[in-house]
């Protein structure tokens, strides 16, 4: 019977405080929903099937961690302000004869009540949302997505544990607050208002340092593989930095504004700066949350849209022509014989090869140290590898219209490179030394890098043009001596007998014909005496490319929607709770002679800065994150910086527009509350 009493009292309390409890419960529901949906996506087995599945699931796991952290900070803060608002009520109960431990029990019931409603509604919402979003996106994007709809029980589990802990701590926090104060103190505290926050120099410095360090990592990391590991470090640094700078830096900034008398003593600056300063401690965390969520939305959308839009580009870089033949142990005679047979076959069938590419080379993965290239030894070397191609000058001359040097000596080379240039005039190759006669980038040579390179667009590429087969032979011997013949990076090449790697490709312009011709190519290879070779067509891989990049895009949009929703929720919550807080202040000011028009103007000024601060910061974050994300998407074989820049700019603009709409809506709600 007694228990029943506490339960009813708790319920009654929540109903009585519904003005502040409804937004709080909505926040709980929103956070649970978000955490569940995120976990659910992270657990989704379909993720592993995506291109770069390990990278994606790593990012998702990390994202779950961030969402969890976000949930802890956000709920704890909203709850502590709720408790603060209710101190007077607690004091009254206390004075009316309720002991503090009884109050604790009432609070426990209240917490349980909120927890149960929040978790239940959050789960239902999460289930519904993931399902709806899945169907919606599937319909919208019009491609088969591998990520199936999926109910994650482990996500349920971790949700219950995480939020259980959060609620336990909010309850303990409330208990502490009640136990530490006498009823009279409790009564007065609410009236005392928030004291003006102090400028915290140490925190500001630390925050700026964290931000700087995060930005520095992004700007200086060059290798995509290290970028992957350092990316998370940078993200954590930037998140910490954002919280610190928003909480302490914003106060310093507002105080600076206040000290500028001619700026401060203008009607709407006066009201908005003082208003923001007054509540900055509470404001700052919300603003930092909005900023981080906005950054995530922007990064995920721009990157996945770029990947999707860049599918064509990726396919092209992997298949520069519709039909590609890669063969080993190919002499010049065999290559000529083969090409003759192919063109004969095409002619018989009324077809013509367009944009033919054909060259022979000796290529592999090497390590560059200064101006030396050496063979890779062990796994560690593979992380810092470059792509090296050795070709005869005369073979290369057929591929470009540019005038190259006429002749090369046996110790001279001509260098073509993508990425970083080799310093100095000499080039060492596994102990051999060559004079670099001249050098050029692919662009300068007018050669499509896709034709010559075969690694993903990750590593630097060097094409080294030499005099003749003799020099190629020397190089192979030297490199093989270094790493052992059985591990040779020049597999299937033997310059001594003119056997090199052979690349041949052309366009036909029709998928069916390409496939038809492909089926004949193996026979023709054998007829020409080429022992083995791979024959691939672009179309077989196109579908899977689109499917997988589409999967990533789906994931990106899904998460962006999720984070975007969270950001909107926070904005809305902020506006409502602050509206009620500010109402009295605006009433007083109206009595002193503030007109309705001025009220609206000063609200606009205040809400505007509160709203656009996170957006502006998010855009700065995105700008600094740009270089490291360029490296990361290079792991996905996209090397089109221009395209990524375009998608980033478009995403930022679209997001900014959406943001402005949400701003207009919440500003109206705020105004209505304040002017009631």
């Amino acid at each position, binding site marked *: 019977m007694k228990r029943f009493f506490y339960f009813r009292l708790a319920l009654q309390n929540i109903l009585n405080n519904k003005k502040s409890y409804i937004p709080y419960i909505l926040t709980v529901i929103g956070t649970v929903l978000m955490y569940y949906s995120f976990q659910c996506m992270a657990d989704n087995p379909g993720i592993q099937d995506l291109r770069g599945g390990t990278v994606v699931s790593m990012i998702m796991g990390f994202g779950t961690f961030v969402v969890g952290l976000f949930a802890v900070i956000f709920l704890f803060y909203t709850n502590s302000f709720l408790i603060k608002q209710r101190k007077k009520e607690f004091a009254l109960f206390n004075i009316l004869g309720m002991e503090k431990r009884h109050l604790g029990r009432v609070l426990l019931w209240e917490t349980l009540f909120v927890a149960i409603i929040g978790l239940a509604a959050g789960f239902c919402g999460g289930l519904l949302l993931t399902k709806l979003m899945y169907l919606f996106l599937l319909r919208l994007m019009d491609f088969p997505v591998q990520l199936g709809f999926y109910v994650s029980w482990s996500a349920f589990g971790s949700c219950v544990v995480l939020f259980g802990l959060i609620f336990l701590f909010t309850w303990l926090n409330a208990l502490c607050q009640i136990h530490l104060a006498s009823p009279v103190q409790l009564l007065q505290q609410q*009236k*005392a*208002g*928030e*004291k*003006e926050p102090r400028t915290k120099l140490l925190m500001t410095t630390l925050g700026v340092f964290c931000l700087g360090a995060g930005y520095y990592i992004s700007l200086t990391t060059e290798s995509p593989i290290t970028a992957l590991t350092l990316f998370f470090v940078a993200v954590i640094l930037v998140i910490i930095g954002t919280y610190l700078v928003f909480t302490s830096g914003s106060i310093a900034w507002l105080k600076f504004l206040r000290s500028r*008398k*001619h700026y401060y*003593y*203008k*009607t709407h600056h*006066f009201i908005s700066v*003082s*208003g923001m*300063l*007054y*509540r900055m401690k509470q404001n700052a965390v919300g603003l930092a949350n909005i900023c981080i969520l906005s950054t995530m939305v922007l990064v995920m959308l721009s990157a996945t849209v770029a990947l999707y839009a860049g599918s064509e580009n990726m396919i092209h870089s992997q298949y520069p022509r519709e039909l590609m033949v890669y063969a080993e142990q190919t002499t010049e005679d065999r290559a000529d014989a083969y090409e003759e047979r192919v063109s004969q076959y095409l002619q018989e069938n009324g077809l013509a090869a367009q944009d033919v590419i054909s060259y022979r080379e000796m290529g592999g993965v090497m390590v560059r140290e200064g101006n030396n290239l050496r063979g890779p030894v062990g796994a560690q070397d593979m992380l810092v590898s470059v792509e090296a191609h050795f070709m005869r000058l005369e073979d290369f001359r057929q591929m470009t219209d540019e005038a190259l040097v006429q002749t090369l000596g046996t110790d001279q080379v001509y260098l073509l490179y993508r990425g970083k240039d080799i310093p100095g005039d000499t080039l060492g190759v596994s102990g051999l030394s060559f004079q670099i006669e001249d050098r050029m980038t692919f662009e300068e040579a007018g050669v499509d890098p896709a034709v010559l390179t075969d690694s993903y667009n990750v590593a630097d590429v060097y094409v080294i043009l030499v005099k003749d087969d003799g020099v190629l032979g020397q190089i192979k011997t030297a490199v093989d001596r270094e790493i052992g013949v059985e591990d040779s990076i020049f597999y299937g090449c033997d310059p001594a007998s003119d056997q090199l790697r052979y690349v041949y490709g052309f366009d036909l312009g029709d998928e069916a014909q390409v496939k038809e011709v492909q089926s004949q190519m193996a026979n023709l290879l054998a007829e020409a005496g080429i022992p083995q070779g791979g024959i691939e067509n672009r179309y077989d891989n196109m579908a899977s490319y689109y499917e997988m990049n589409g999967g990533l895009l789906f994931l990106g949009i899904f998460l962006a929607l999720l984070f975007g929703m969270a950001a909107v929720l926070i904005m809305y919550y902020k506006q409502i709770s602050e509206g009620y807080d500010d109402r009295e*202040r605006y009433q*007083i*000011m*109206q*009595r*002193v*002679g*503030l*007109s*309705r*028009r*001025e009220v609206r103007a000063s609200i606009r000024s205040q809400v505007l800065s509160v709203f656009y601060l996170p957006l502006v910061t998010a855009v700065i974050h995105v700008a600094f994150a740009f270089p490291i994300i360029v490296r990361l998407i290079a792991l996905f074989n996209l090397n089109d910086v221009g395209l990524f820049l375009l998608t980033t700019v478009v995403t930022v603009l679209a997001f900014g527009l959406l943001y402005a709409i949400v701003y207009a809506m919440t500003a109206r709600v705020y105004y209505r509350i304040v002017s009631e």
Partner: protein
Amino acid sequence: MALLEVSHLKKIYTTRLGGAKIQALKDVSFSVEAGEYVAIMGESGSGKTTLLNILAALDKPTVGEVLLEGRSLVALKEREISAFRRDNLGFVFQDFNLLDNFSVQDNIFLPLVLAGKSYEEMVKQITPLAHRLGIADILKKYPYEISGGQKQRTAAARALITAPRLLLADEPTGALDSRASEELLSLFADINRDGQTILMVTHSIAAASHAGRVLFIKDGQVFHQLYRASLRREEMYQRISDTLTTIATSSERRQS
């Protein structure tokens, strides 16, 4: 011409539910000359607050006219009201109505900032006023750091800094202890002696005894008025007290 002319004010509220009509003011007429110190007394529900709200242009009468220096408050357009209030009226409220997020100085500056004055001008105006009101040392403090008396003097400074035609005070001593009340009242007497017109609503006899004239309101009309003339404070106190007793007993007699 009188500074403030109130003629035949009538105010009828219609309750939101049911549409029952409540008459707050029946027929109030009086005038205030420039430099006068007038107290309005009356019991709760007598219509004092309604009257003050109308005088402050916060509310409009159902019938009647209020003229401040010949200008009608009733006819003011919505857009002009705020500026009019800012330029011509000063307010002191029972619960101070200071803003916690402003320092004492900024609270006092508020009406000037709203009026678009420059910072230098504001500083020039606040310095003598702060000395006069004895709050020069606490200008940098915040409302939650100062005492009730200091708060009310801050509020008075805020009301006076625009040099209003009329200072309206609503139970200014209601939330103060007796010492702080006495200080504030002698302050009001001082500034009145310097020519400031004051209209104060109160039900404290002590407060009213400082005024040059006391209007008694009962059941929505002016019931009686007392002039101080050359009376000492103690005598004035006695007169007011007697009048209130008369009012109270007369209504009792009528009831019985």
